[in-house]
C-alpha cells in the first residue's frame, strides 16, 4: 500500500525527524490559509505539492514554488481537480485531490536515503547517494559507483557504525554526518516497525547551518502485514486506486486492468500471467490480469464476470481453468450458474484442463449458452483472438450502418 508524501512525512516527524512546516489543502482557499499561517511564522517562500501516488511529480508540473500566500492559493487552485501527467502515470494522468503546502527550505546539499527489501540477500538494505533530488534508478543506471548500501541483518537492523560509514561515503563531515546517520537509523527502524516494503527520502536536504530536513518522502507498506497495523490501513486512499481493482479486492479477486480487448479469467496468478502472454503471442491483447483463486467458486466466477464486463473495451472473454483440486465439471456448472446473474454479450471461450476436464467440456457444450470450447491453451488463445476481431468487425458494421 502506497502512502502519500504528507502521510509519510507525518510518520517520520513522529519519529523525531525534521520535516518542513506545512499543511494539506483540498481547495485554493485552504492552501492560501496554510501559506498565511507559514508567512506569519516567518516564511517568505512556499512550496505547493500535488499529493498523488505517482512519482515524477516535478517533471509533470506537480511541484511549484510561490512567493506569497496569494500565489500559493492560485497555484493550488490551478492544480486541484486537474489531471497531473507524470512519466509514471500514463497519458491520461491522475486527478489531484489534495496539495501539500510547505514553507520553502534553503538547500545547500541534496542527498538520497532509501530502504528496500533486497530479495537476493533476503534482508532490508539501506541505500544512500550524494546525488539526491533525482530518480535513484537513473543514478543506478548511469553512475552505479555513486550508490552506497548497507544491509540490515535480521535481528540487528542498521547498526550505528554502518550508518556512519554511509554518511562518510557521501562525503559528509561533523554535525551533518552525525545527523544524516541518525536519519538513516531512524528510517531503518520505521521500516521495520511499520512493515515497510519501500521507504525513501529524496531529497534529504542539508542546509547552510547543517540542519538535516526531509524535503520529500515516500513510504510503501507490505499489504500482507496490514492486519497488524489497523491505524495504517486507515491511511489508504481509494481514490488513487483503479476502481475495478478496488471492487475486485472486495471479492478477494486479484485483478489488474490493462488496455487490451480480451478479458481473462484464470485460476492461479502464474497461469493468469501465462495466459496473457499466450494471448499476446497469438496476436491479441489481454484486457486484464485476473486470478479467481485456485477454487474458482460460483460466487467468485460471478463477481469476476461482473468486473470483466465493466471494462468497456472487452470484445471476448477467455476462461482458463486448470482443475487440480477443483474439478472442471464443477467449474463448468459454476460458469453457467454465474451467467444466469450476469449478462455477458461478447463471445466466451472456455478452456478446462485437469480433473474431470472431459465432463466439464461436455457440460458447456450441452448448455444453451453458446460457449467456444477449447482443449489446449494454444487453441484457446487463438480462438479468443479470432472471436475478439469478429466482435470488432460486427461493431464496426453496426456503427457504419447507423451512420448511413
Amino acid at each position, binding site marked *: 500500500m502506497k502512502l502519500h508524501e504528507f502521510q509519510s512525512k507525518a510518520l517520520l516527524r513522529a519519529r523525531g525527524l525534521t520535516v518542513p512546516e506545512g499543511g494539506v489543502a483540498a481547495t485554493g482557499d485552504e492552501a492560501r490559509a496554510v501559506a498565511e499561517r507559514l508567512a506569519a511564522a516567518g516564511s517568505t517562500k512556499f512550496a505547493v505539492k500535488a499529493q498523488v501516488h505517482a512519482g515524477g511529480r516535478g517533471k509533470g508540473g506537480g511541484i511549484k514554488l510561490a512567493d506569497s500566500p496569494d500565489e500559493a492559493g492560485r497555484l493550488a487552485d490551478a492544480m486541484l481537480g486537474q489531471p497531473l501527467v507524470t512519466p509514471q502515470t500514463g497519458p491520461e494522468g491522475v486527478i489531484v485531490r489534495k496539495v501539500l503546502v510547505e514553507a520553502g527550505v534553503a538547500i545547500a546539499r541534496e542527498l538520497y536515503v532509501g530502504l528496500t527489501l533486497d530479495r537476493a540477500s533476503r534482508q532490508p538494505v539501506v541505500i544512500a547517494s550524494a546525488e539526491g533530488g533525482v530518480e535513484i534508478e537513473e543514478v543506478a543506471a548511469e553512475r552505479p559507483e555513486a550508490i552506497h548500501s548497507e544491509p540490515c541483518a*535480521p535481528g540487528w537492523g542498521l547498526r550505528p557504525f554502518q550508518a556512519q560509514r554511509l554518511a562518510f561515503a557521501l562525503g559528509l563531515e561533523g554535525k551533518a554526518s552525525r545527523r544524516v546517520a541518525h536519519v538513516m537509523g531512524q528510517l531503518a527502524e520505521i521500516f521495520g516497525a511499520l512493515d515497510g516494503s519501500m521507504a525513501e527520502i529524496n531529497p534529504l536536504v542539508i542546509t547552510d547551518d547543517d540542519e538535516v530536513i526531509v524535503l520529500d518522502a515516500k513510504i510503501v507498506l507490505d499489504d500482507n502485514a496490514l*492486519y497488524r497495523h489497523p491505524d495504517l490501513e486507515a491511511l489508504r486512499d481509494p481514490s488513487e486506486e483503479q476502481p475495478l481493482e478496488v471492487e475486485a479486492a472486495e471479492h478477494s479477486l486479484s485483478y489488474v486492468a490493462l488496455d487490451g480487448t480480451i478479458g481473462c479469467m484464470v485460476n492461479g*496468478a502464474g497461469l493468469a*500471467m501465462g495466459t496473457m502472454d499466450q494471448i499476446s503471442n497469438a496476436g491479441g491483447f489481454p484486457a486484464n490480469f485476473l486470478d479467481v483463486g485456485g477454487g474458482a467458486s460460483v460466487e467468485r466466477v460471478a463477481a469476476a464476470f461482473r468486473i470483466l464486463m465493466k471494462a468497456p473495451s472487452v470484445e471476448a472473454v477467455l476462461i482458463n481453468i*486448470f482443475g487440480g483440486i477443483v474439478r472442471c465439471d464443477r467449474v463448468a456448472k459454476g460458469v453457467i450458474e454465474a451467467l444466469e446473474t450476469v449478462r455477458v454479450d461478447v463471445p466466451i471461450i472456455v478452456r478446462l484442463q485437469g480433473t474431470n476436464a472431459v465432463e466439464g467440456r461436455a457440460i458447456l457444450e450441452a448448455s444453451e449458452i453458446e460457449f467456444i470450447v477449447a482443449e489446449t491453451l494454444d487453441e484457446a*488463445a487463438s480462438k479468443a483472438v479470432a472471436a475478439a476481431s469478429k466482435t470488432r468487425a460486427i461493431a464496426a458494421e453496426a456503427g457504419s450502418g447507423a451512420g448511413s
Partner: protein
Amino acid sequence: MSILVDADTRLLVQGITGTEGTFHTRQCREYGTNVVAGVTPGKGGQQFDDEVPVFNTVGEAVEATGADVSLIFVPPPFAADAVMEAAEAGMRLAICITEGIPALDMVDVVGYCNARGTRLVGPNCPGVISPGSCKVGIMPGFVHREGNVGVISRSGTLTYEAVDQITRAGLGQSTCIGIGGDPVIGTTFSDCLGMFTEDEQTRAVVMIGEIGGSAEEEAAALIADDYPLPVVSFIAGQTAPPGKRMGHAGAIIAGGKGTAAEKMAALREAGVHVVGSPSEIGAKIVEVLG
C-alpha cells in the same frame, strides 16, 4: 532417486486439524505419503482420521514419531512462528504452503532456518512432489508421472499445466518443487538446480519463472557456468505492466527491474531453451531430451 522427498519421508503436518490441513493431509495420504504426525496446539492427544497422532508441539511430535519433514498450513499471522518451531525441533525440511505472510517475518525466519540447518521451501507455494513415491503439498497428484524431468517453479497452477504437458508428452518428473511466489523465500531456483545435478534420476530441468526480483538471472549465471543438465524455461508476465503486483506478492516490476524480457535474455545467453508461450513447454522438453 529424487530430491527433497521420497518414500522414506516421515511427514508431519502443522495445522493438521484446520480445513486446508485436513483436506490436503488426506490427499497426501491417499497418494501414499507416510504422514506420521500432526500438530495443532491445544489438540494434542487426538487422532487424525483414527490413524495419525496429533501433538501440541512439534518437539513432542518429533520425539514420538521421528518425523523429518514438516508441511505447514498455519494461517499467515502464525505461520512464521510455525516454521521456526519446525526448525527448532530439528526438521530436515519445512514446506510452508501459507500465502500472505509479512515479508519482514520471512527475513527473520530464513535467517533462523539457515542457522539451524533446516531447508525451507516456500512460503506461498504448492509444495514438493516426487511422483510415484511422495507428495508433500496441495498439487493434484494425478497429473504427475514418475520420470526424469525436474520441475522448479514460482507458481502453482502454471506448474500443473507444465507438468500435465510433460506427462501427456509421454515423459515424467523426478521431483517438482514449487518454490513460492513471495519476495522472500527459503529455497531458490539456484538451490534446486544444484540439488538436481546430484540426482541420478533427473536428466533435464524445467524452470518456470515470473516477473519480479532477480532469481532467474542468478540461476542463469549458475547455468552459464557449465551446468550439466539441459534446462527449458518459461517466464510468466511478458505482458505485465510495470509497478503492478500480479497476484503473487513477489511478481512486480519495480523501478524498471525484474521484467520478463531481461530474464529471458539472461537465460538464453546462458544456453537455456527459453519458450515464449506456456503451451510450448511440453514439446520443448521432448525436443531437448530427444
